[in-house]
């Protein structure tokens, strides 16, 4: 099994490494002298320099593809293990933001970018009758990218290992919930920003607006004035849609926003598969916190046993309005926070 350090070893062993060290050590020389030295070096090591470059880039490419394409690390280590961990410890609510995590997306992009970079540079290397051409600068940068890839791999493992801990999950759920509450109930009522979640839609009410409008389900009743939800009810989704304002059922990650038209005749105009996270109310965050607390054998309970509840002192509210931890005898989800 090759390690990701192989490109570095190849750099140290290979002629290109000696060439790179030679060039960097003579960077301060004047152009004429430096150019002559480089030409001498090329004359000495010239034949086969393209094969060294090919070997080096192939090594980088192989390791990048091993990480990115074969996905033994990214998929098996992260996705599969995270799903197993989620199924055993938490519900699907808790790791809903796994795909949304910017670090995960960036690391995946860097791995795939190194892979594609090596493919593109490898394609330009020529040798033999076609005339030798080895893009030394591109190869040198490929080595730098391999080092960046190693750093990203270490960062990624650390990030995943820390993000599936109970403290991180509870903190993210608490931050999301407090943020949603702040959006719904700003300090100065009526001073909310336009377009934020919780602001009642005025011109084009739809199910996006229902999330912030608990009474809107009644208005969508088939006998109501807006009418025409029969097709949705036939598909079994209308009852879920009616509960959109309560934040109490588990469908909210999968259904569905309907962009309502101005006229009832065009309703529903379109369906989207997943509600954008910015449109969620505090119900989702509270549900996530409750999920943490409802798992007696889960990580949160283990965390509580491990720390003997010493860290569960009443926490001050972020806005200084009291405490968030109601104390002994409260609901487990509340005390877990």
């Amino acid at each position, binding site marked *: 099994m090759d390690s990701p350090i192989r490109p570095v070893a190849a750099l140290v062993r290979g002629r290109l490494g000696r060439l790179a060290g030679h*060039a960097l050590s003579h960077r301060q020389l004047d152009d004429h002298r430096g150019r002559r030295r480089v030409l001498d070096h090329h004359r000495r090591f010239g034949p086969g320099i393209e094969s060294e470059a090919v070997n080096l880039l192939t090594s980088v490419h192989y390791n990048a593809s091993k990480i990115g394409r074969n996905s033994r690390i990214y998929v098996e280590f992260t996705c599969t293990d995270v799903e197993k961990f989620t199924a055993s410890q938490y519900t699907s609510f808790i790791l809903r933001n796994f795909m949304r995590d910017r670090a995960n*997306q960036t690391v995946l*992009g860097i791995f795939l970018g190194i892979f594609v970079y090596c493919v593109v540079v490898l394609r330009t290397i020529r040798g033999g009758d076609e005339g030798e051409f080895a893009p030394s600068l591109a190869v040198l940068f490929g080595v730098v990218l391999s080092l960046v890839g190693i750093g990203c791999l270490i960062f990624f493992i650390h990030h995943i290992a820390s993000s599936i801990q109970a403290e991180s999950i509870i903190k993210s759920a608490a931050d999301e919930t407090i943020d949603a509450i702040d959006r719904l109930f700003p300090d100065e009522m009526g001073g909310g920003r336009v377009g934020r979640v919780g602001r009642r*839609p005025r011109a084009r009410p739809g199910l*996006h607006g229902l999330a912030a409008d608990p009474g809107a389900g009644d208005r969508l009743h088939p006998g109501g004035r807006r009418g025409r939800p029969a097709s949705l009810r036939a598909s079994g989704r209308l009852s879920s849609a009616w509960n959109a304002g309560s934040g109490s059922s588990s469908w909210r990650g999968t259904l569905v926003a309907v962009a309502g038209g101005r006229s009832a005749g065009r309703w529903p105009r379109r369906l989207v598969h997943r509600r954008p996270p*910015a449109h969620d109310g505090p119900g989702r965050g509270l549900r996530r916190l409750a999920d943490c607390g409802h798992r007696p054998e889960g990580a949160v309970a283990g965390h509580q046993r491990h720390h003997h509840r010493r860290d569960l002192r009443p926490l001050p509210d972020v806005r200084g309005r009291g405490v968030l931890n109601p104390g002994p005898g409260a609901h487990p989800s509340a005390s877990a926070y």
Partner: protein
Amino acid sequence: MLNLRSLWDRLRSSLWFVPSFLVTGSVALALGLVEIDASGKWTHL
């Protein structure tokens, strides 16, 4: 405004958006560096 925000949220939630940017950037970087090498402006190696 709300549609733009939901579109942005959907893009950010996708595993296509950021990796596509990075892959595109890596292709541009590779082509640019090869062009510099081919032009002979890089003479250190």
